[in-house]
């Protein structure tokens, strides 16, 4: 009825939700320091978030690198800059595409899985059951997953960087008549540590965010299979948006310093 009241209510609801998510994420991180720490749960999560994501990360990276090489060559040729392909490719992948694409893929794979798994545990009373067994479900279920994702993402991104550049290399050498040694030398001399480190910092932040979203929506899901479905959807959509927004924020931060 009243547009202003409705807008205000909507805004308040969003602010409240953001506050709850932030509080949840902080509590997850506190769990890393304040024991007990559940190694088995952590290694399990590390295996599923990290190791099992390698194939999809590799495929994403190699095709993206290859396509990117073609585009840079084509665009660069318009003002005779095609020889800069290795440098431009390297910077784009290491600073931007590696972290963002890897995080989006892991969010589709793992944030959804976390939301579905914790959601199913919530609606079948397993989370309540855990607290009656003298184990804080937050510390057993949430903190290890968040730590695993925060650690795994930089490693995955490093792999994505290497494979992505390799995809570009294959196209440059086999389709565009670049010399392999020149390609690698140009790339190596051009890329700085800051390029690589900024990408890895982004990756850690994205890992933290996507796991916080996956766990938050799963842990707080309500109302049976439908609730779990909604939790999974919110986790994937929410973490994707958050990753892209955080990416812009971090990029502008890194460029300024």
């Amino acid at each position: 009825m009243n547009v202003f009241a409705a807008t205000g209510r909507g805004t308040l609801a969003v602010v409240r939700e953001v506050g709850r998510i932030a509080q949840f994420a902080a509590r997850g991180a506190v769990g890393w320091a304040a024991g007990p720490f559940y190694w088995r749960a952590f290694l399990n999560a590390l295996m599923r978030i990290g190791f099992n994501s390698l194939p999809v990360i590799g495929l994403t990276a190699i095709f993206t690198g290859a396509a990117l090489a073609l585009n840079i060559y084509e665009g660069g040729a318009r003002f005779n800059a095609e020889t800069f392909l290795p440098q431009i490719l390297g910077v784009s992948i290491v600073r931007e595409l590696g972290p963002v694409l890897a995080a989006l893929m892991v969010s589709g794979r793992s944030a959804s899985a976390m939301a579905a798994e914790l959601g199913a545990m919530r609606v079948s009373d397993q989370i309540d059951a855990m607290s009656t067994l003298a184990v804080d479900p937050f510390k057993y279920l949430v903190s290890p997953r968040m730590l695993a994702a925060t650690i795994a993402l930089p490693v995955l991104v490093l792999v994505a960087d290497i494979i992505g550049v390799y995809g570009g290399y294959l196209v440059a050498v086999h389709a565009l008549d670049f010399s392999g040694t020149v390609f690698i030398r140009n790339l190596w001399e051009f890329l700085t540590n800051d390029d690589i480190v900024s990408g890895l910092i982004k990756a850690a932040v994205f890992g933290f965010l996507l796991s916080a979203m996956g766990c938050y929506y799963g842990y707080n899901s309500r109302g049976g299979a439908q609730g779990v479905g909604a939790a999974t959807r919110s986790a994937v959509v929410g973490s994707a948006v958050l990753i892209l927004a955080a990416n812009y924020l971090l990029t502008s931060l890194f460029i300024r310093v």
Partner: protein
Amino acid sequence: MPGDTPKISIRGLEKAFNGKPVLRGLDLDLAPGRSLVVIGMSGTGKSVLLKCVLGVIQPDRGRIAIDGVDIVRLSESRRARMTRQIGMLFQGAALFDSLKVWENVAFRLIYGERRPRREARQTAVDCLAQVGLAPEVGELSPAELSGGMQKRVALARAIAAEPSILFFDEPTTGLDPITADVINSLISDRTRALGATAISITHDLVSARKIADEIAMLHQGQIIWRGPASEIMNTGNPMVDQFVHGRADGPIHMTMRRA
């Protein structure tokens, strides 16, 4: 004097979901070492009552004291310390499906009390044997078990850590009469052996009389009758009478339309 303090004491407990009251000022005291069975129609809030005491549902109003300490107003971590002494069998078993059966039973020992896995596993196998399950069952995942077997595993998990308070939410629903009797014997044996205080929920009056010292009936959010288990068949209370004889006609009307 500690002997006079009830193990569990509930006063004026109220809980509503989305404006629909479920518990309406419920009072209940239970002395240490006593076994109480709560009966009542489906959907009257028996499970909610247990979950309030466990601290997994926050009541709207009222007081719940364990050993004289009100847990409703405690901080989450201090409440968790108080409710640690409660072992609970959930109505839907609530086994962790990512873990093997024996790890479920040993969960509290391994992760809650940090005992060595080998030792915890031995305890788990012993507990499984007590509920009539072979050691091989321990290697299966919960999803590979029948509903009745899941119930028995959940029971083994609840008693594995020898808690001083035990809650059983419909422990024998879905079991055949023979297994149900084994479980009932187990419940009364274990509660007695542990000297535990127990609250059980069941719709099965044979079970109720077997495991209870006392029976209480929950109706419309309050305890409307409470007495020794032996008196349940002739209480003179028309509502209890209707319930125990399973009659559709009587003072209790089932609401068929949407509330």
